[in-house]
């Protein structure tokens, strides 16, 4: 089953100043969202394989959209994240089926490598509700400068029978990181943690 996509939205934000300090080059984050029909809305279905396949399809599609929106080559991506908001006729498990089994591999192809776990969040919600997508360094989860998040919100999504699937990619960490920890430059990127 491929996704019945109603809408795709892409959001890019560049931060040029923070608390009066100029950020150069600007830090940049992108989030791409697909609003799709939930094939299992309103009923209990045991086998969620079709949603896992949709996850694979959207991981690649949305990852590519983010990289294109940032105008970077895939190896320049530094952090990533994913999240799903399930419309009220669905089930939280539908979000899990999209996010966890198969979405990661094609997303990692889109951002080149990606040894680290893709941080995620999921919730149930209605049109206009906020979905916060967590962000973490794509090669080493402990890189502290890249712990971040990006908010996405569409006034018309998700409707009751829909799923809102979000993938976020950045080419940078927070604008003024200074809380220490493992740095981007010191990350080994072998075990996904350090």
């Amino acid at each position, binding site marked *: 089953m491929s996704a019945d*996509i*109603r*809408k*795709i*939205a*892409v*959001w*890019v*934000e*560049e*931060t*040029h*100043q*923070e608390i009066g300090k100029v950020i150069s080059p*600007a830090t940049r984050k992108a989030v791409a969202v697909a609003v799709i029909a939930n094939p299992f809305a309103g009923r209990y279905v045991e086998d969620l394989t079709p949603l896992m396949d949709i996850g694979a399809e959207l991981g690649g599609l949305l990852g590519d959209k983010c990289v294109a*929106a940032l105008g970077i080559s895939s190896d320049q991506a530094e952090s990533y994240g994913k999240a799903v908001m399930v419309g009220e006729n669905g089930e939280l498990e539908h979000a899990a089926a999209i996010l966890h089994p198969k979405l990661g591999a094609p997303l990692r192809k889109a951002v080149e490598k990606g040894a680290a776990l893709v941080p995620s969040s999921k919730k149930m919600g209605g049109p206009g509700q*906020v979905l916060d997508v967590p962000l973490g360094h794509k090669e080493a989860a402990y890189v502290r400068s890249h712990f971040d998040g990006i*908010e996405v*919100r569409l*006034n018309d999504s998700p409707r009751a029978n829909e799923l809102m699937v979000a993938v976020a990619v950045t080419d940078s960490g927070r604008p003024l990181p200074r809380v220490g920890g493992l740095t981007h430059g010191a990350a080994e990127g072998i075990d996904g943690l350090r």
Partner: protein
Amino acid sequence: MPEVKIRKIVSCTEEIYHEGGPKADTPLRRAAVVAVIENPFSGTFAEDIQPFMEDLKPLGLEMATRLIGLLGGDPALVEGYGKGAIIGAAGELEHGALWHAPGGYAMRDVLGGAKAIVPSSKKVGGVGARLDVPVTHIEASYVRSHFDSMEIGLNDAPRANEMVLTLVMTTGARVHNRAGGLQAGKIEGKDGLR
């Protein structure tokens, strides 16, 4: 003349494939570019504010040019437009009115004409405020199929001393438009209305 201090620039695009009806052959695309800038008049009553319109012209042109890029790079694809402003709480609604001329004329510049008035909305708001930016046809305001809007907003803007300025463009009619009225193919294109 005050310098335009940009804290953030956001771009967002939506591709709308359907809204419960038949899938469009070509999805409707909407795009917004949003700039978060310092409000040079915040906290004071300044009588003479008009010189800032001149200062905003390069930003308007930059934003309008980015919009064309977001929609595929060809100005001929653009059929609808709109603009808006959210003024932070230490400012005044009148400050938002400074965006009318530089925002509107910048879009007309890059579109090579466009006779219809650019619809707009503005308000005073805090961080997280949302603005519904009205959209109408670029050549004839009465084209009913192109009456639309796009919601914008950022979780971290406008701070009290900031203003959020936005321009919006679309590539066509509402995806399932069927409410009648003047059709885009019947435009006379003389007065900007019909």
